């Protein structure tokens, strides 16, 4: 749809590749795109590293507690995105909650840059927002895991790391990749979080795209940027889906 409509809009001016030429010739756009993809990749990896143990623990608890734990996991996810993004906005910044609290406690004399707006704030916020979505798909594969297989391997003398690497990870690979898709796609396209807590070095391509429809008011360029982002996301998605189809658990 965005293909058709962006073309539609450009027809109103002239049919041209001018906007794409701008994107390619001005290094800032491509650099921002790569940066955003890199941030999304980093958040994805961190989210999976944090989510895997959590999914594991939930899958190993007694069935009667599992649903409660899952519902608890989803409550933050269900609460509005802007609510959570705003919460982090009040926490970071030179006069944010963390800096003010640290100051009033007398630990430091001035605001710490560590808790200012910027890239670390964006990463932490995104991680917080996306974590539930990373836990769920991993939990769903671990829940169906054949634990006998693990017990078997253990009793045959395989160490915990070996079991993890040779049995658990291959069998849960498609859940992990699903988690990666769920986290990567939205984070790469985010614009509210970088706008609220990004500061200068936390800008992402989404914020630039959004500004083309607002302050900068260059709809055609914005549409071309959005298509560029969409194309790279489709590429990443295709790659992840190929990986997922190769995973042994995919057809189970």
């Amino acid at each position, binding site marked *: 749809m965005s293909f058709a409509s962006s073309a539609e809009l450009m027809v109103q001016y002239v049919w041209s590749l001018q906007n794409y030429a701008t994107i390619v010739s001005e290094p800032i756009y491509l650099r921002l795109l790569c940066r955003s993809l890199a941030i999304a990749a980093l958040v994805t990896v961190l989210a999976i590293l944090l989510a895997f143990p959590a999914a594991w623990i939930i899958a190993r608890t007694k069935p009667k507690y599992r649903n409660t734990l899952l519902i608890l996991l989803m409550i933050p996810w269900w609460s509005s995105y802007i609510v*959570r993004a705003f919460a982090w906005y009040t926490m970071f910044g030179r006069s944010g*909650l963390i800096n003010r609290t640290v100051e009033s406690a007398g630990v430091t004399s001035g605001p710490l840059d560590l808790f200012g707006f910027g890239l670390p704030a964006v990463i932490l916020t995104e991680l*917080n927002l996306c974590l539930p979505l990373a836990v769920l798909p991993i939990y769903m594969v671990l829940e169906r895991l054949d634990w006998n297989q693990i017990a078997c391997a253990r009793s045959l003398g395989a160490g915990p790391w070996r079991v993890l690497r040779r049995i658990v990870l291959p069998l849960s690979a498609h859940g992990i990749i699903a988690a990666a898709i769920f986290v990567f796609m939205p984070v790469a396209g985010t614009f509210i979080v970088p706008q609220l807590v990004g500061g200068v070095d936390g800008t992402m391509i989404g914020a630039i795209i959004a500004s083309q429809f607002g302050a900068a008011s260059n709809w055609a360029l914005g549409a071309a940027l959005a298509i560029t982002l969409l194309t790279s996301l489709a590429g990443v998605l295709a790659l992840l889906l190929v990986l997922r189809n190769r995973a042994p658990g995919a057809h189970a």
Partner: protein
Amino acid sequence: MIKRTFLSWIYLSFLYIFLFFPALIVVLFSFNTSRVWSFPLRGITWRWYEELLARPDAVAAAMNSLIVATVTMTVSVALGGAVAFAFHQWRFSAKNGVESLLLLPLLVPNLIWAIGLLLLVGAIHLPTGPATVILGHVVLTMPYVFLLVRSRLQSLDPNLERAARGLGATSPLIFRRIILPHVGPALLASALISFATSFSELVVAFFLTGAGFNTLPVFIYSLIEIEPSPIVNAIASIIFFVAVTCMLSAALIGGREVAFTHGGDSHDK
């Protein structure tokens, strides 16, 4: 072994605290007397909620959100339910195409989705306003309705229908007495999800509201940029409670499948 269980509970608790922290902060500071966000808390007050009610623009935005969410819910459930029912009842060749088209909004980031809709709306010279926001939200929420109702329909025993027909029941009667009671919970749950999603959705609404019309999330987003104050906490707390209450009820009514459907504003980023 006991030590390991203990460690895993500590890990899980920290993770949950991290996840609940933002919502907790927002609600906590909506009752704090001080204007700035800082610990220690000063005292408890309803002041921010009172100031909020005294602002006509905030009340208008809240009313708009209620209307948009209600209409979105109605249209989404009707359309999504109808499509799911059509999938159940008939076989047609375009099924796969229609299905992927319906589920597309779940994968594309909301920003790109919103821009696509904005350009489309602009291209056909439709003025942005309540109708375009509702359009955007229907597109976003219909997949949930479709998925939930369809999976519920799949669990319907086809013999029930056959038996009823054999006993002389007409199609409308079968629909009313067998199919509707069976999919009822799914319809109700997806209605709640649609309402919660539309009520708390920011990105699509942000692009499609147009001048002079605001929903509550768009209103607080502009408020954060212009005059951040605990009033924003008050509005955010209200959105939080509405969304979470709807989604929790949906999960209780619709069961496990709902818990795995991401309501809220899933791909809102």
